[in-house]
């Protein structure tokens, strides 16, 4: 089946003092209809910029280029801004982390929901209003008709995020990009929102790219996962494969950092990843993880090749899993 979204060799550069910040460094992605892809990584790894690049919402000074960004066969890079704007919110929609900052505080939620619909559909306000009510009910908001007159500040965080989801669904998009949709919410609400997204996705056959820092979320919702580090995808594959046999030293390291009730003994020392993320300003050469990797060797100063763990599960490292030796490279910063 042809993927709904195909991204090949996506690069995002941001000019900063001292050169270019290579925030996203040549990543490939593909999402099929009805599929959930999770992009996971720590702050600054380029996961959010990747999503903004796909939506063509990057900050003006950021430069994007890619061999290909194809949505349903349409090359997005060749679209005029007007055509892209028509596509956004209609065929592809985005859900942001903090609904308080992405909803307009001075308009009612009804206004904002209806406006989204009217911007893309030739229809009456009445019809748009009915659809807004319908969707608010669908995302679990009671007394939806009366909620339309509410302003964002009158709703709780969980409700605001539901409104945000309803808004993204107004035009029945084929692709939803959700950037940390539950990070600002309580754990109990987080589970509900993720469940809601999963249900709606199944019901409407949407594809979803979910961007998160939380491997717990990934394990529970992803079909496919891409682990990002310093602007690159270091490991990608079906979620079942990646969690069953995490293969990049960064992925294994991350999983060891998280205490898992019932598995990690309470009070036991948690795994750590020493060192800090390298600067991505100026030339970046070789494996970006080598300064923090316990298996680093001199060869790691050269760009790491892709290795295949199993069908559709690959990672970027000089050493396949069996061939790793504890690092002897001098000057490795460890500990802090």
């Amino acid at each position, binding site marked *: 089946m042809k993927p709904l979204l195909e991204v090949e060799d996506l690069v995002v550069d941001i000019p900063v003092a001292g050169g270019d910040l290579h925030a996203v460094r040549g990543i490939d992605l593909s999402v099929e209809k009805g599929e959930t892809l999770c992009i996971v990584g720590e702050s600054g790894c380029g996961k959010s910029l990747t999503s903004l690049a796909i939506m063509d919402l990057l900050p003006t000074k950021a430069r994007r280029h890619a061999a290909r960004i194809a949505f349903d066969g349409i090359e997005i890079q060749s679209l005029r801004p007007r055509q892209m704007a028509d596509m956004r919110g209609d065929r592809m929609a985005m859900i942001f982390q903090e609904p308080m900052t992405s909803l307009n505080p001075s308009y009612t939620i009804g206004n904002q929901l209806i406006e989204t619909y009217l911007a893309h559909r030739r229809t009456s306000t009445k019809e748009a209003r009915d659809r807004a009510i319908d969707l608010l009910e669908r995302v679990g908001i009671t007394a939806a008709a009366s909620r339309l007159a509410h302003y964002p500040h009158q709703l709780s965080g969980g409700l605001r995020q539901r409104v945000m989801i309803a808004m993204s669904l107004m035009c029945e998009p084929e692709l939803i990009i959700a950037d940390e949709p539950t990070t600002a919410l309580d754990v109990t609400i987080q589970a509900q929102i993720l469940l809601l997204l999963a249900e709606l996705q199944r019901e409407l056959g949407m594809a979803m790219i979910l961007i998160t820092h939380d491997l717990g979320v990934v394990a*529970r919702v992803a079909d496919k996962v891409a682990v990002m580090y310093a602007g690159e995808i270091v490991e990608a594959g079906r979620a079942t494969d990646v*969690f069953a046999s995490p293969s990049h030293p960064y992925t294994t390291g991350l999983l060891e*950092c*998280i205490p898992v009730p019932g598995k990690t003994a309470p009070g036991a*020392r948690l795994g750590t990843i020493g060192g800090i993320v390298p600067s991505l300003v100026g030339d970046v050469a070789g494996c970006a993880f080598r300064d923090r990797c316990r298996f680093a060797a001199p060869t790691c100063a050269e760009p790491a090749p892709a290795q295949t763990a199993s069908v559709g599960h690959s990672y970027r490292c000089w050493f396949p899993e069996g061939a790793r030796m504890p690092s002897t490279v001098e000057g490795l910063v460890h500990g802090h």
Partner: protein
Amino acid sequence: MVTDPPTTAHPVLELRAVSKVYRVQTTMFNRPRDLRAVDDVSLQLHRGDVLGLVGESGCGKSTLSRLLLGLEAPTSGEVLIDGKPMTGTSIRDRARRIQPIFQDPYASLNPRKTVADIIALPLRVHSIGERSDDAKRVTEMMDRVGLPARMLLNYPNQLSGGQRQRVAIARALVMRPEIIICDEPTSALDVSVQSQILNLLMDLHDEFGLTYLFISHDLSVVQHIASRVAVMYLGRIIEARKSTQLFADPLHPYSKALLDSVLTPEIGMGLPETNLGATFPNPIDPPPGCAFHPRCGHAMQRCHKERPPTLREGSDRVECWLHDDLEAEQTRAVDAQRSTAATPDTV
């Protein structure tokens, strides 16, 4: 988890029937109303305890920590340090014994002071030791929390999030307090940094014999680090027990829902169905009876009208009608059957 607390010694920090009520004006024309942020809370911290405090946002966790730090005075009830009322002690005294570590190391450090100044400030404020000894104390403490000495003259904006949190920890520890109130100390950090800070907090606990109140929304972290856990809902502690017991067999339906909501990185588990309903009640208008009843799958007639009593057993306790008497025992048994039959409930 750290060593079990001695239960016989009297608590180093104690809340006795503490309430904190704020007057809030909801709209311009309404009369101000009372918001019970903390409602009749009794809590004990023994030397060496790591007490985890969990609950949703708005449940009163932070107000509770402010009461313990002496930053707020209780409306009623008493806060005791070493068995003596806190009202009788000076702020200076309190600050030497209890120190906070806050969530956001970006906001809690003065951007115009160097690391050395930030860590030394408590020493100066409290006139501890000679000024000439400051440098030694500061470098010792930096070494202890894992900050290289070359960062002595750096400013907070030159440090990473993890390093800033280490500065905050060094500042809290430089006066050698006994009690640390950690308010979401790792929530703003990446997981790889979070684990370093948790390891450090556990080491420091053992090394300095510290007592922690560890506030967090992350139950995996609390289970890992806490020896006891208190679950808070709408200003009340609805369950407080030993961590191992609470996580193995939560008694209150809310505790259970919280535990169920934890998303561990394990594949094939799917998403939990907590049946909690979408809305956290408005704390200005708490529901009558048991405040949790509108969201509770086990709510009985009685839960709508009467607030459940606090059932105690040693220092353990739970506030829930389900655990009150035999009748409730039977209801539980039926529920247990129902849940083993795995009939999915509808929201």
